[in-house]
């Protein structure tokens, strides 16, 4: 069902100035103005996404017991994996992967902070309240920096929980480490967008997009001059700043250039994607499931319209204290995971893990229901579901599910158990290669992973 945007957003021009929760319209220069038939590209690109859940799992209710390291998924899945029951042929359950960088390594407590910040970087985050934040570049960004030029957005970062504002996070680790899993540089996180409406407008624009060609062209000339002018401001500072200030200026310059390229790309693009869903409400749903579904609908659209090929998604932040009342659980998630053996609490942890998994299942079904080329979007996508913690606060045998086939990168329907201590980075290197970004080595990687694809 295609719905015209103009109809969907009445009075928008006026309302935009009113009230806290009404969204800002998208910078219109970044939205193609002219609707046209969707281009059909001859080569369907591969896509990559990561869906993260915090606080680990109850491994007894995650681990599939099997005699061999590679086997078909059993008829009965462990409880945490149950939401994937109908998707058995679309997912690979992976065991044995470790992120060594998440471990203590002499730094003492703070496994939550490290889990988030090492999940896609495989680096050992520097323990700091903030002065010298340092982890690694995350794999999504390594890929985005290489192939991001082919899409309007190099990558998208989404999430269901707003970052912690003030106060302390995990034992001497700045909140920056747990607020984002995507890191553009070792010190610059990419914060997730949690407002469905804002994501929608980034993808499809708002009613304000200027469509008059003359005015639009003039507007774009102004935009360019504005960017030139502030670039000049920034450059005039270059010589006069110290080392750390210089780092901030570099972040600024990078961001401006990124926007410039995005605008150029838009100019050369003659089509405007027409969304198949209505613009979501400007409020953020309180209900977790509703929130996740909205964002996952948009995530699917972003991949489908080839607005980006790389997405990360934070279902909740490490050490999240969210209480999942929608399934009758009043206690905070993180509190429950310190269950001290209490059976009732363990049961609640399992149910929360199931709820999280159900969101991932929703996404996989969505991708599977989206036709693309001769198959579906899922056939061309690699989606990882996982956490940087396994049992308690361990960083080995991390719970990992791969969905999709990624153009033959994965052969789903199986359990694949790697030897203990196999670096998670190996999975990342493998996926990057399938995205067309060969990576010689990445963090502690020791090679590519065999056995995941049809080939080996």
């Amino acid at each position, binding site marked *: 069902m295609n719905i015209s945007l103009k109809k969907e957003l009445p009075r928008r021009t*006026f*309302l935009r*100035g*009113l*009230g*806290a*929760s009404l969204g*800002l319209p*998208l910078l219109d220069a*970044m939205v193609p103005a002219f609707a046209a038939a969707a281009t059909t590209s001859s080569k369907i690109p591969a896509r990559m996404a990561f869906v993260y859940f915090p606080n680990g799992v109850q491994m007894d209710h995650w681990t599939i017991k099997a005699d061999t390291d590679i086997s078909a998924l059993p008829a009965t899945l462990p409880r945490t994996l149950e939401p994937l029951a109908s998707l058995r042929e679309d997912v690979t359950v992976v065991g044995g992967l470790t992120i060594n960088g998440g471990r203590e390594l002499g*730094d*003492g*407590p703070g496994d939550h902070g490290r889990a988030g910040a090492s999940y896609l970087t495989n680096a050992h985050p520097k323990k*700091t*309240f903030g*002065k010298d*934040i340092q982890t690694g570049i995350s794999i999504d960004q390594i890929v985005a920096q290489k192939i991001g030029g082919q899409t309007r957005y*190099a990558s998208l970062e989404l999430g269901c929980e707003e*970052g912690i*504002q*003030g*106060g*302390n996070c995990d*034992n001497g680790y*700045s909140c*920056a480490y747990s607020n984002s899993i995507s890191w553009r540089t070792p010190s*610059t*996180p990419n914060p997730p*967008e949690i407002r469905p409406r804002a994501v929608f407008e980034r993808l499809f624009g708002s009613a304000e997009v200027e469509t008059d060609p003359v005015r639009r062209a*003039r507007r774009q000339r*102004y935009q360019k*001059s*504005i960017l030139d*002018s*502030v670039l*000049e*401001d920034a450059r005039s500072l270059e010589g*006069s700043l110290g*080392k*750390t*200030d210089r*780092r*901030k*200026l570099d972040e*600024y310059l990078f*961001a401006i250039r*990124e926007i410039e390229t995005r605008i150029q790309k838009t100019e050369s693009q003659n089509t405007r994607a027409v969304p198949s869903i209505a613009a979501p*409400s*400007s409020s953020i749903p*309180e*209900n977790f499931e*509703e929130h996740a579904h909205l964002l996952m609908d948009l995530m699917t659209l972003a991949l489908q319209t080839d607005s980006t090929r790389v997405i990360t998604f934070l279902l909740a932040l490490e050490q999240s*204290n*969210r209480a999942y*009342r929608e399934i009758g659980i*009043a206690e905070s998630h993180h509190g429950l995971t310190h269950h001290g053996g*209490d*059976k009732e609490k363990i049961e609640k942890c399992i149910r929360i893990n199931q709820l999280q998994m159900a969101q991932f299942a929703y996404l996989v079904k969505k991708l599977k229901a989206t036709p693309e080329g001769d198959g579906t979007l899922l056939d061309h996508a690699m989606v990882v579901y996982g956490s940087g913690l396994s049992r*308690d*606060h361990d960083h080995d045998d991390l719970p990992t599910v791969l969905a999709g086939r990624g153009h033959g990168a994965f052969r789903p329907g199986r359990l694949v158990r790697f030897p203990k201590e196999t670096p998670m980075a190996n999975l990342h290197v493998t996926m990057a290669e399938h995205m067309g970004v060969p990576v010689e080595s990445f963090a502690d990687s020791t090679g590519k992973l065999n056995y995941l694809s049809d080939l080996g």
Partner: protein
Amino acid sequence: MREAHSAAVAGVVILSASVALISSLSSLSGQSASFSQSVQPVLARNCFACHNEKLKTGNLNLEALQDNSQASQHPEIWERVLDKLTAGQMPPPGQPAPSKTEIAAVTHWIDDLLQRSGPNRAADPGRVTARRLNRVEYHNTIRDLLGVAVHAADEFPVDDSGYGFDNIGDVLTVSPLLMEKYLTAAAKISKLAIYGETLPPKPTVLVRLMPKKGHETGVPPAGGLTLPFSMRGAMYGSFVFPADAEYEIRVRVANYRGQDPNDLSPEQLAQIEARRKAFLARKKQGGGAPKRVRREPTAEELKAREDAARQAFPPVQLVASLDGRQILTGVVEGDVTFEYSRGEFIARVPVQAGEHFLRASFPELADLDDPRSNVNPDGRRKLYVDYTDIVGPFNPSAAPPESYKRIFLCGHAPGHHQPSCARPAVENLLRRAYRRPVTKEEVDAKLRLVALAQKEGDAVEEGLRIALEAVLVSPHFLFRLERDPPSATAAHLVTEHELASRLSYFLWASMPDEELRRLADQGRLRQPGVLEAQVRRMLKDPKGANLVDNFAAQWLQLRTLGRTKPDPDRFPVVDEELLDAMKRETQLFVSAVVQEDRSILDLIDAPFTFVNGPLAHHYGLKDVHGEEFQRVSLDGEQRGGLLTQASILTVSSYPTRTSPPVRGKWVLENLLGTPPPPPPPNVPPLEEAKLGNTLTMRERMEQHRKDPACAPCHTVMDPIGFGLESYDAVGAWRTKDGAVPIDTSGVLPGGRSFSGAKDLKQILRSQSDAFTRNVTEKLLTFALGRGLESYDRTAVDQIRRQVAANDNRFSTLVLGVVNSQPFQMRSGRE
């Protein structure tokens, strides 16, 4: 005198640095005997059992520091040791404790070391990394720069925080997403500032403000603004009015005051039941309701019914207010149908453009002992504001918006600007936006944007709008940059404009105002008396609320209140209105300490607080009525000070219950600045089977403390938390937890026994040094926008002493921070 001191400080520092260096070198040999003779043996006997190479308990290995020269290289370790020793927190109870002389020998050596390394390290005032404006600062700066009330920054991603605060330069990054939002916001704000709000051709419903209908109801469909849930049926929230004009405030009231089944007599209930059964029987036979002969009631009958209704449901007053000013009253009466009816109350009021706070409520309901008496058995509230529409604008003012006046200095009417107006306008804008004097080249560069627009055929206004749009994304605006003077390799005073910015972002979270700017322009900010007068003026200004809303709210972790809401099944009377009231109490309380320049120790305990009706009921306080917050005196038995405020007690609890260790940790971390280390990895779970379910929380925790891995911290945390057990997880007073009577007694490390919050507060007050040091460190961190380093210790000590010498006054603390070396200075190029 203080100002004179700070002006001369640069020279003094360099001198004292070299003196200190020499003296510390010369004293090295003399000290080594003392370390190996009187310190290390004590450590070996009392500390090495845990703080050794293998265990590194608390991430501390004292064994590694084998001789004086090794030990002297780690003043930061000794600071921690000193803090723990003086707080009596180490060694933990149950472990052999050193004698007083032994402790004195150790602390003496540490003091000596810290003093030797102190002045030396104090030569470095530190370098604050260029600070990007955070969301609050961006919002405030736009408001003060342009007079535009727009919540653009709400769309920005959350600012990461470090050291407990979200204004730390090193942590505030710029992502492409944020840049995209900056550009979008700049486009929008510049349009608003130059052209004002685009008004609809005729008055329309601008917004529907919709309070939530239950503890956990979701959001309404697009177009409405969701507001907090109030069991007492109130509606409150802010709205940005687009123009100076008249507006209609249409308050829609729901009146579901059916007969409460609890109030019905058994006979009445039996009658209803019989009617219901008869109806169901008829329905089963396919008969349905009996046909009624409808007849219009006579005037007398109608009047009788209305009278009966009024008696059954007495009229209740509805009041609506805008920024606390009453704009509407109405009476919600009993209804002829005895059933559900709604009514609309309309007020038409002139409102100035900008953000205003609207409230519509039934003040009488604030005095309900239990808000559940406004809830029907079916869960619906009896009386509530269903929604409020804001309709307008009627007769909008033709005058240009406030922002227009701030930009167009020529004073010409819209459309009549000459190109010659552009230069003064741009210069004025840049100077204010960049918070410093600007060069001709900088002005010229932005004027080129104005010229470009004119070349394209647009008016001067549009040209200025484009220039403004560029200014709002310039690094000079988005960052607070401090420039080193040419060839400055040594520590130096920051410029007066930089100092003005440091001051205004510290106290106001916004740009300097005209007065600060003028003083900086004239180079008078550091003249005797000027700085202090400015600080006092700024604290009095309404913008000074920043210290409460941002500093205290982050320091005390109030921002997390409501992030995970108390479980509505266990705490059904805690609605969002009560959570907001809790927060408000703490804000008003801290604000009183600031505004009345009270002792900061009053934060621990004070004989007053602020409550409104609902919060007073929550506390069981008598004689407080209505919705307005009022100052009340306390006898100190149950309440008094931050620790006994519901906000703090809720923040330091789980959603379902209290946790003594969590509360203990909250106190140690936030009040005393001595956070316990986190639990060691792989703590064996409490064996529930062995413990059974019959144990009280206290008994369970005692079991827990028997484990040597848990004991060191829990013997400190738990007693503090148990001292606060008289307050439940939402801060209400209790004497029992379930069936178990509350026991608030405890023994602190060092053997001091106490019982209850009152004793606990006394003990905390007696440790005022630790408290003052902690508040000083937090405030200095917030003021500087960076984490404190070991070289800041001297500044902290100085401020702390000044505060103690001046009755612990809040203003002394703020002035101490403002006059401190790290605030006044910046070290040389890295």
